[in-house]
Structure formats: C-alpha cells, structure tokens
C-alpha cells in the first residue's frame, strides 16, 4: 500500500466513523426523544409571539392572581403573564447556550490546534489555560457580567471566557495524540505541511470530541446564565429569563411555590436534554461502545 493509499484510506475510515455514529444515534429512542424536546424548545423560542401574550406588560391590579384564560399559569407579583414570561424565557437560555457553545468552539479549536502544533506557543498557551482554570468559572462570569454594562452580549462573553480554556485543553490533547499517528508522519513525509495538514488530518480528528464538549458547554452555559439572572447580575430584570423569574418568585415562595416551579422545571428539562444528547454523542463517537451496539 502506497503512502497515498494509506492516507486516503484513513480519511475514508474517518468519514465512515461519523456516519456510523449518526446511524447509532438514530437507532436509539432516548436520543430521538431528547432531540424532539430540544426542537420543541427551539420552536417555542422562535414562535414565542404566536404562542404567548405580552411578557413585560405590568398589571398591578391582577398581581399574583391564579390561572385564567388570559394568563394560563397565572400572574406574578407585578401582574405579568407567567406563561408568556416562561415562553419568552426560552429565548434567553437558548441564545446564550448556543452562542457560548459556538464561541467556545471557534476560539477553543483555533487556540487548541495552535497549542498542539507549536512547541513554545503551546507551552505559553497552556500556562494561560491553567491560570484561567484556577479561577472558579461562575465567579469569573459573575464578576465580568456585573462590572461590565448589563446586556445579553456581556452575559454571553462572560460565560464564554471560562469555557474557552476547557475546549483548548481538550483540542490540544487530541492534536498531540493525532500527531503521533503514522499517517500524519506519512502526510508530513510527502510534503503536506502547515494549513493543509491541519485542515485535512488534524481538524477532522478533533471534530467528535469538540462536538461533545460543545454540547456540554451549551448545557453549562444555560445553567450559568440562569445563575447570573437569579443573582441579579445578568440582563435587566424586565427581559424575561427563567433565572430572573425564579429570583422574582423568591419572596412569594411559601404562598406561591408554582411561580418557582414553572421556570425551574423548564430550565432543568432543557439542560437535561442537552446533557443527554451530549452523552449519547459521546457514546456514539467512542468506537469501543459502538461495537457493543445499542445500550
């Protein structure tokens, strides 16, 4: 087998692994259910104006009234429609979750590959990563979000900053592993170098682990953004968010626990399905588990 054949055979195998993983995922009902629930959340966020009424309109005369035809889940302490706020709250969680996952992926992969390919640059980057990971992520996010001007962009950046080092560490470890592979040595020996080497051989190998890590980053970003809103350092309290709704409900918790339950359940359910999807993906991309078949 010539070196060319060897290199292209490996690439073919790589493509095969991804499509096999897709088949494994599709065959599993838990995955389908979680994907369905996530899709429902996305539809809820996109079509919020069609599903629910005005989430910010204050009506003090109707404060803390129970469920009615105009407000299915009752009204909060300012007379706002709880159902509408819960529906619109999904926008905040999904926007932050997806954005943080995307930002962590782009920066994490770029820096991680550089850190894996360059000896000196890698050593410097890893010291920076170690230092950033020594600062508790939530503290970093709270401090950043509170000290900058409140806004959704600030929240996204605040949560992304601690997520990037985790991704860098993961990508670098994959790159270091791949560089030891004979086919990479073969590719280098036939003159592949620089960007083509990274693009054809290194990057495809990071795809699986990065996808899994991005899913977990999305789940933890949704939690962190809820924590920020809950502590009152996220976006302005008017903007509907599940964490903010729970913060509002604190004072009325004994008499109206349901105001805490609605956002709490939605938040937990969303994070749960994202986490389960991450787990399934991680199982699917692990060749050892694929041999075992459906779990």
């Amino acid at each position: 087998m010539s070196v060319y054949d060897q290199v292209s055979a490996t690439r073919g195998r790589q493509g095969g692994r991804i499509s096999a993983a897709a088949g494994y995922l599709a065959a599993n009902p838990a995955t389908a259910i979680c994907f369905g629930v996530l899709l429902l959340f996305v539809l809820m966020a996109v079509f919020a104006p069609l599903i629910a009424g005005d989430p910010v309109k204050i009506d003090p005369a109707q404060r803390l009234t129970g469920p009615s035809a105009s407000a299915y889940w009752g009204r909060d302490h300012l007379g706002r429609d709880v159902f509408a706020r819960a529906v619109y709250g999904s926008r905040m969680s999904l926007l932050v979750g997806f954005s943080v996952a995307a930002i962590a992926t782009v920066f994490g992969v770029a820096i991680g590959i550089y850190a894996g390919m360059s000896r000196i640059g890698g050593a410097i980057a890893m010291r920076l990563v170690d230092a950033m990971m020594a600062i508790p992520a939530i503290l970093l996010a709270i401090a950043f979000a509170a000290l900058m001007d409140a806004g959704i962009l600030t929240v996204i950046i605040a949560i992304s900053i601690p997520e990037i080092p985790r991704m860098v560490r993961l990508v670098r470890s994959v790159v270091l592993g791949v560089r030891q592979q004979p086919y990479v040595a073969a590719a280098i020996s036939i003159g592949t170098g620089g960007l083509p080497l990274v693009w054809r051989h290194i990057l495809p190998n990071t795809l699986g682990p990065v996808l899994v890590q991005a899913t977990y980053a999305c789940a933890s970003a949704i939690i962190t953004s809820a924590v920020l809103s809950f502590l009152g350092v996220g976006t302005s309290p008017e903007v509907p968010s599940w964490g903010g709704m729970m913060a509002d409900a604190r004072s009325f918790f004994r008499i109206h626990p349901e105001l805490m339950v609605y956002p709490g359940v939605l938040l937990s359910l969303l994070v749960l399905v994202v986490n389960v999807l991450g787990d399934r993906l991680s199982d699917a991309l692990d060749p050892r588990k694929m041999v075992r078949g459906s779990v």
Partner: protein
Amino acid sequence: MLGYVLGRLLAAIPIFILVAIFIFSLVHLTPGDPAVLLAGDNANPQQVEKIRERLHLDEPLIVQFGIWAGNALQFDLGESIYSNKPVTQLIAQRIQPTFVLAAVTLFLTVAIAVPLGVIAAWRANGWIDRGIMAFAVLGFSVPVFVIAYLLVYFFAVSLRWFPVQGYKPLSNGLLTTLHSVTLPSIALALVFAALIARVTRAAMLEALSENFTRTARAKGLGTFRILVIHALKSAGIPVITVIGIGFATLVGGVVVTESVFNIPGIGRLTVDAITRRDYPVVQGVILFFSALLILINLLIDLSYALFDPRVKG
C-alpha cells in the same frame, strides 16, 4: 518524593501570578471611572479626587498592580470601599459558614458518590447501573438553586424538619450548626455527587477489566474485597482528580447556595461586593478562592503518591 513536592510547588507559582494578573485586569479594564462610581451621585470633585488618591487610581496600571500584588503577598488585600474594613478581616469573619458548608458537602458527596459509582460499575449495564447513571445525569442537569428550593419546599416549609434559611455558628454547638447546613449541603452535594459517581464508575470499569482483578478473582477473593480493596484503590487517582476539578464547581455552587439560604459566608460577601462594585473586596475574594483552588489541586497532586507508588520515585 521531595523533588516531586518541590516541582509541584514551583509549577504553582507562575499560575498564581497569572491568576493575579487576570483578576486585576478584570476589575481595572472594565469601563467607567471607579472613583466617580464610588463617590456616589452627590459627591463633589474633591471627594472623587480623594477616593482616586486613596485607591491609587491615578497611577499607571502597572504601578497599581505592583502596589496591589505587593500588599497581597503580605496578606493585605486593601480595604472595602463600602465598610472601610480590611478585606482580609471581612474574609476571616465570613470563613466559618463557607468552610462548614464545603466540608459537610464534600463528606456527603463522597459518601453518596463513591458507593454509587462502585455499585454501578459492579452491575454495569444492568438496571441498577442505568438507574444510578440516570440519577447522575439528572443531578448535574438540575441547577443547584432549583434543587435547593425543592428541598426547602419539602423539608423546611412542608415537613418543618429544617430551617428555611440562616446559619447557626459553631459557638451554638456542632449539632445545631450541622442542622442549619443540612439542606444547603445536600443541595450542593447532589450536583457534585453526580459528577463524581460517573467518574468513579468509569474508573472502576477500567480497573475491573485489568489483569490484577482477574488474578484476585482467580485466587478466590470475595466480591467486596475485589471491589473495594483492589479495584477502588486503583480507581483512586481519577476519582481524586475529579474531586479537585469539581472544587471549582463547588465554589460556584457555594456562592449560589449561600444566596438561596441566606448564609453569611464568603459567597454572599462576593455577591454583595459585586453588586456594590466594591472593587477591593471583589479582587480579594476571587484571589482568595483561586488561591484555595490552586492549593487544593496541589494537595491532590501530592496525594497521588498515596495511590500510585510509581509517583514517589
């Protein structure tokens, strides 16, 4: 062994310096003039100038960092702008509730997670395993404040077994204190335990597939002995490592939990300082927590020697 310890210690120093630089720039590169902010709306320019001078805000950033870092090395983190008390004193006053909460949480976590992880690995792919792993996914999907309010609703509001909120200092007796931190500790431990149970299971599965496990079984050792003495000891390193990594999550959880249960610890101090933009306290507290994390991870590195004789060499 001594060389290993020294090596780890030396490696922690540059990380700590970088952390200090990060924290300092986080606070100082944010927009707005802190002196104007602190002085309030009714202050005249002289008052603003006085604050600026007191905090060295008119010096270049490098000089400010030098002053701050130099003082921090002597355990002087400056004074709170809000209460004018030294930051170290504020931290010292608030350390007991946080320490008790973290210690009880850690104890509960290990007591819950390690047995669950071992049982899950022993009965791998059976229904017990699936049940435990489902609990684990649930555990780190439900945010800590949601679990906290669930517990408060059932065990404090409905059953009245525990107080809804508050902390009783150790001077009231150990049992009273433990009673007051039971609910917050359980809330925190459930999240933390989910993570550790998963890692324990994975590490145990690895250990159970090793040759030494087969040897142990072949020479007729009982299941308990194989699981606990042989496999768990070899699974110790990843489990201890993830407890260390999980500590960062735990610190975040402490901040939230103290806020939910109204516990006057360092977490509350942090949130209060941030909402008041009390810069010296914000810097001091984050530096304190980061130093703690570096120290804990250092201790964990050193504990590897207990589990893996090869590290000693």
